């Protein structure tokens, strides 16, 4: 029996899990696991041909159960997501080795559980990505959900509550998908992709609607699409440090993967476009687009309100998911490329940001934005990473976030969707505002007295962060590298492929050359610097050397404006969306609670005989009459 590269990858991943389970209590467990992730990454690189063509690698295992055949395979889409998964796992795991692990253990954390849960997450995600039919897709989907639950719940306390919320949402989503799969099975007679592709053409629009709602809703839960987004931020934020970096980078993208696979590849965006909503001008695709846009706006502005760095980032993660979906739903060459590229870009900067924040927590013990400040003098490298990250997140040049967002905007304009464009821009504004709050409250202003002895993060943390920062910049400079993968993904899922160059895209509908853009940008910086320094008017001041209202502050009073950030803005917009979804969620829960009470009352009421009698009566009456 010969192993295909996919077999090797899955075996490697399984072995990682086993090593984590068996040796996870040992001293060097973290390093071992990290090395094994490296091995997985190498195997993936061995399959790199996938990223540039539409070949398929099959796993040599397949099952035949209860008349269903289960198989696994990798194509460009799987490979692209798997690359991000394994890379972020590698870096997060690397980040956690050494110092962080030690301090985690000191705080009573279970390192064994952490490593095992991480390895399990990666393993299940690879299984999901490799799925070769709808059933194995669902199996992978459920596995990923539960593995995520494990990682989220392990911290106990608040985290467990958040994880419970997550699993309820995830189960609801999972069950919607399950129902959808049953409907597909009935319509197509099989769960193989090929059979579904042919069956889709024969489906009535009602059937298609139901499927779109069930699959879209089910997968959307994982992505944190709008009505179902409440679970995500607390669940990710409360996960132990590097775990949140990993989850934030890739976990909710599994939802996007499934949407791409099922809604875009199998059902086809054209079919979805033809599903009109009665009595309105919009169709299912517009609906998805608008959901995506609201997913961008609302969570982003919610993020602005957060006072905890991790929560702020996690809320942003939801919003960025909206860009990806928006790009994919626009579905021309540029939009698709933008959405998919954003998956990659988002993973890089989100991981970097979470890591930077974790590094700050590691050194200072808090992530409360009102208790930090001025750390730039103590942790300059972390500051650099965070700065790179937020530039990426805000979608500004020269980082990679700019490229993907530009592609999405450009395609919106090309396709004539100005309203969506406008909304997306509003989202970006919110992003810029809130990431400024992040970097300002942590690193700028004056250093707090209790943080005067803080040291830079240890190298075991610093190196992965710096690698990520480098990737963010390099793929910003040469977006052609990931765009090559993105183009073959587009081919695989049946969207028009984008024409890319090393520096960006080159097509009739618009071109972007980042090498040129960045060149100009740095030239501008250079000119500015020359002017600035040649003028000789600059003067170095100490961080504490400042005054307020013309009044010098003494050195023992630290001046940091952080509480109630953006008060005016929040006052202006807060009323529009404050807690409305929380209210929705709460009302659903109380409805369930109420029903539960009613049912318990039903069983508590003593009159069993009466039930029996009345049932017998109604049933027989139904027959007789």
């Amino acid at each position, binding site marked *: 029996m010969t192993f295909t590269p996919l077999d090797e990858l899955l075996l490697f991943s399984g072995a990682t899990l086993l090593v984590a389970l068996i040796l996870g209590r040992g001293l060097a467990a973290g390093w071992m696991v990290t090395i094994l992730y490296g091995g997985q990454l190498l195997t993936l690189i061995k399959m790199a041909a996938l990223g540039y063509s539409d070949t398929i690698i099959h796993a040599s295992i397949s099952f035949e159960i209860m008349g269903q055949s289960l198989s696994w395979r990798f194509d460009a889409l799987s490979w692209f997501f798997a690359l991000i998964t394994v890379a972020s796992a590698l870096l997060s795991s690397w980040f956690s080795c050494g110092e962080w692990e030690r301090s985690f253990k000191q705080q009573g954390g279970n390192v064994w559980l952490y490593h095992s849960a991480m390895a399990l997450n990666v393993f299940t995600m690879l299984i999901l990505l490799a799925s070769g039919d709808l059933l194995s897709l669902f199996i992978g989907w459920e596995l990923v959900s539960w593995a995520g639950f494990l990682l989220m719940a392990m911290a106990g306390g608040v985290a467990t509550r958040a994880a419970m919320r997550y699993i309820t949402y995830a189960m609801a989503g999972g069950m919607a998908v399950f129902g959808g799969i049953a409907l597909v099975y009935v319509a197509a007679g099989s769960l193989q992709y090929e059979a579904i592709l042919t069956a889709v053409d024969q489906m009535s629009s009602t059937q298609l609607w139901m499927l779109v709602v069930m699959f879209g809703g089910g997968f959307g839960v994982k992505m944190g699409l709008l009505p179902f987004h409440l679970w995500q931020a607390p669940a990710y934020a409360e996960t132990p440090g590097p775990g949140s970096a990993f989850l934030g980078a890739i976990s909710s993208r599994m939802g996007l993967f499934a949407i791409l696979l099922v809604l875009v590849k199998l059902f086809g965006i054209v079919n979805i476009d033809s599903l009109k909503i009665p009595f309105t001008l919009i169709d299912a695709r517009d609906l998805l687009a608008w959901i995506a846009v609201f997913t961008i706006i609302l969570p982003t502005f919610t993020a602005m309100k957060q006072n905890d760095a991790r929560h702020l980032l996690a809320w942003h993660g939801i919003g960025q998911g909206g860009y990806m979906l928006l790009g994919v739903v626009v579905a021309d060459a540029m939009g698709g490329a933008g959405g998919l590229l954003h998956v990659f870009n988002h993973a890089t900067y989100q991981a970097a940001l979470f890591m930077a924040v974790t590094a700050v927590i590691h050194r200072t013990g808090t992530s409360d934005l009102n208790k930090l400040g001025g750390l730039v003098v103590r942790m300059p490298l972390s500051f650099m990473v965070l700065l790179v990250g937020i530039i990426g997140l805000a979608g500004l040049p020269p980082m990679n976030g700019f490229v993907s967002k530009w592609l999405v905007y450009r395609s919106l304009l090309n396709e004539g969707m100005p309203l969506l464009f406008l909304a997306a821009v509003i989202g970006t504004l919110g992003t810029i505002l809130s990431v400024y709050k992040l970097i300002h409250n942590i690193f700028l202003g004056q250093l707090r007295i209790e943080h005067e002895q803080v040291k830079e993060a240890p190298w075991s943390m610093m190196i992965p962060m710096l690698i990520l920062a480098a990737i963010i910049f390099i793929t910003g400079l040469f977006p052609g590298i990931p765009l090559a993968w993105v183009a073959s993904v587009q081919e695989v899922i049946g969207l028009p492929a984008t024409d890319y160059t090393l520096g960006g895209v080159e097509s009739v509908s618009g071109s972007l050359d980042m090498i040129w853009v960045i060149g100009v940008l740095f030239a501008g910086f250079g000119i500015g610097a020359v002017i600035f320094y040649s003028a000789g008017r600059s003067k170095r001041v100490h961080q504490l050397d400042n005054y307020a209202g013309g009044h010098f502050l003494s050195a023992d009073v630290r001046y940091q404006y952080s509480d109630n950030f953006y008060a005016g803005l929040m006052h202006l917009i807060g009323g529009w969306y404050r807690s409305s979804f929380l209210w929705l969620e709460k009302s659903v829960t109380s409805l369930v609670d109420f029903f539960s009470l009613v049912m318990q009352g039903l069983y508590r009421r003593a*009159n069993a005989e*009466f039930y029996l*009698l*009345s049932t*017998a*009566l109604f049933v*027989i*009456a139904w027959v*007789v009459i």
Partner: protein
Amino acid sequence: MRNLTGLLFAGGLGFMLLSIAINLDFGTPTMLIGGAIQSNALQKTGATNIVTSVVLGYRGIDTLGELSILFAAAASAGLILGRRHTTAGTQTAGGFVLRHGGSMLFPLLMTIGFYIIFHGHLSPGGGFQGGVILAAAFFLPLLARPGAQLHHGTLSLIEGLAGASFVLIGLIALQQGKAFLQPMLIQDTLGVLLSAGTLPLLYLAVGLKVGAELASLLSHLAQTESDA
């Protein structure tokens, strides 16, 4: 309100079932099984009372199940009531009539009971009816004399052995290559006590078991607890 609905529902259910049942062919049953049994009951079981041949032959396992139910009921009642050690006897001593009548009735009832049991395959009656009379015979002295001990040990011995012999008679048939509970030793004579082979034996087992079971049930119900 609930009373009214309850009443209405019960009445309505009864009425509806009646409207269904009235469509049945009353008085002219198809007798698919019954007819066939009637015509070959005598050869197969040797009993002239066809009900007996059905009870012990054709539906022998029903009877076994029924004995088991009685056994289970008696055992459960014993579990429930006989948990603590009890002083046997009723709360009150019997009156004159009861005391003397009881002792006079005892042999009479025993005779009648066994008669009914043994003629179950010939005439109406059999193990159940006879068993009930046996139970009454055992129970009467208990009512009459407060100090009288009903021998629970003996009773449970009887009930156990009687039940076991029912099963064993069935198993012997199985052992001899026949079916479980198949009647044996049938003689082709009509209306004679020994005509029905194992059937009277089975009925004897049934009678003894029912009698012992019911007697122990009754005594459990009748006795007071020392620490109630």
